[in-house]
């Protein structure tokens, strides 16, 4: 077995694990929820589960690059898109749960809540951005977009910050979990402090002109 084949096998294995760890919990969740076995209020449960799942997946996505560098395992980068797409899928279920099971398609209430409640506005902004990233993740589109693709996908850093604030703002009193998530977010962004600094400088200089 040569080294090249070995790497592709590793990537394949990793992808299978990611598919299983993302899909099985989701299937289990909805099976229990549909059959009314998921606690007294399955609505709240599915919303929280998919929300925190999306955040976890976003953080794991951000962990890939620094991990690949530290471990010197470049092939890890090949699962970044898959993880990102699952983060988007969980976020999509999170939003759909809110609209269909919680608000039960009371659209006026939905739009009101998005506009009036800052934590929901922020969450929706993150979701819209994440949707753009998911759509443009296709290889053909990526080639077509050229340099602007990377610019767009740098928004991932903004997305994770928005999601952290959304989580912190949504809880009633228990702040320790959201604080831990904020800490993780800061650590993962700190790995990219140079890149983020230059992005901010770029933004700042453009604003000056």
């Amino acid at each position: 077995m040569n080294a090249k084949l070995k790497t592709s096998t590793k990537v394949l294995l990793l992808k299978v694990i990611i598919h299983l760890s993302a899909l099985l919990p989701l299937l289990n969740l909805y099976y229990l929820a549909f059959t009314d076995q998921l606690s007294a209020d399955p609505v709240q449960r599915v919303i929280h589960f998919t929300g925190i799942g999306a955040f976890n997946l976003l953080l794991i996505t951000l962990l890939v690059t620094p991990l690949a560098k530290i471990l010197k395992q470049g092939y890890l980068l090949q699962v970044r898109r898959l993880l990102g797409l699952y983060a988007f899928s969980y976020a999509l279920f999170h939003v759909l749960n809110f609209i269909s099971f919680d608000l039960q398609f009371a659209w006026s209430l939905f739009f009101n809540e998005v506009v009036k409640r800052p934590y929901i506005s922020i969450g929706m902004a993150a979701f819209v951005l994440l949707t753009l990233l998911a759509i443009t993740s296709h290889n053909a589109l990526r080639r077509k977009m050229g340099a602007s693709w990377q610019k767009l996908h740098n928004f991932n850093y903004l997305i994770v910050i928005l999601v952290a604030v959304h989580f912190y703002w949504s809880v009633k009193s228990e702040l320790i979990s959201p604080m831990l998530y904020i800490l993780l977010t800061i650590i993962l962004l700190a790995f990219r402090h140079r890149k983020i600094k230059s992005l901010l400088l770029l933004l700042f200089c453009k604003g000056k002109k």
Partner: protein
Amino acid sequence: MLIKFKNKDQLKASDVTDESVYLQRRQLVKNMGFLGAGAILSSAIAKNAQAGFFDSAPAKKDTVFKTTELKFTTDTKNQSLIKTPENKIITHNNFYEFGAQKNQPAELAQNFNVDPWQLTISGECEKPIMLDYDDLTKMFALEERIYRLRCVETWSMVVPWIGFSLAELLKKVVPNSSAKYVQFETLYDPKQMPGQADRRLGGGISYPYVEGLRLDEAMNPLTLMSVGLYGKTLPPQNGAPIRLVVPWKYGFKSIKSIVSIKLVSKQPKTTWQQLAPNEYGFYANVNPNHDHPRWSQASERRITSGGLFARNRIETLPFNGYGEQVAHLYKGMDLSKYY
């Protein structure tokens, strides 16, 4: 000579999982977060079934708190209300003393000891008294009251409580002229209440939990001291052995496992009001026209039977539908100021 052979299967004392760890096993599993299918699956299963494939804890049967049948007169006026099933009422609880997640009180409160119990009624009154465990169910004639319960988080239930009017109890101690408010306190016992010992489990609120009512609110015939539900004594997750039920106010006013009722001259500083005064007021009357700063209060999800697809979003009514009995208490008050 006696030769002791150690049986291989026999567990040593050191093998026994510390009870506090054992009691928190589900939280521990959950805290691991998204580490792969194993972690997340087992936490999802553990929350709902007794043991999952990935549960590392042995399949030990939790002891279940024993409730006993009560004698009471039935509520004939409200039988038409669709009641929330008992198993939902006793597994979906906000009782941070036993964990801030809805499922935690039912899991962590089963060993709660309520007998002996002491409930003191004191303060600005002529005849302060102390009730023991038996007094709670024997001193007053018990009646069933089927009430709507509206949580500030916008879910609601219909609960068949058993209890007696708080007014009857207060009349016994004869409030004096300085008594303007009633202050309630939950038991403080971190050894029994893990949420009081662990800030994260307990949701970061201050303990003991304190609630309060204006004296006229407390004397309203709707205001109930509940000692049971669905015909039996309260399980601990619902506030055993005695709790308050104020059906026209958000659920957090209905304080659980009460050890002290005090008549006072000044408005008590209540737990949620202290934590976030802009979000939770002293009055906390159910009011569809006054939103929580972070979500609308105009409608609610009524939890009855049915899973994810239950079409159960209904309009929230002013004073939770009890306006006829209580609106007069707030005549001339700006309810968006005194929320």
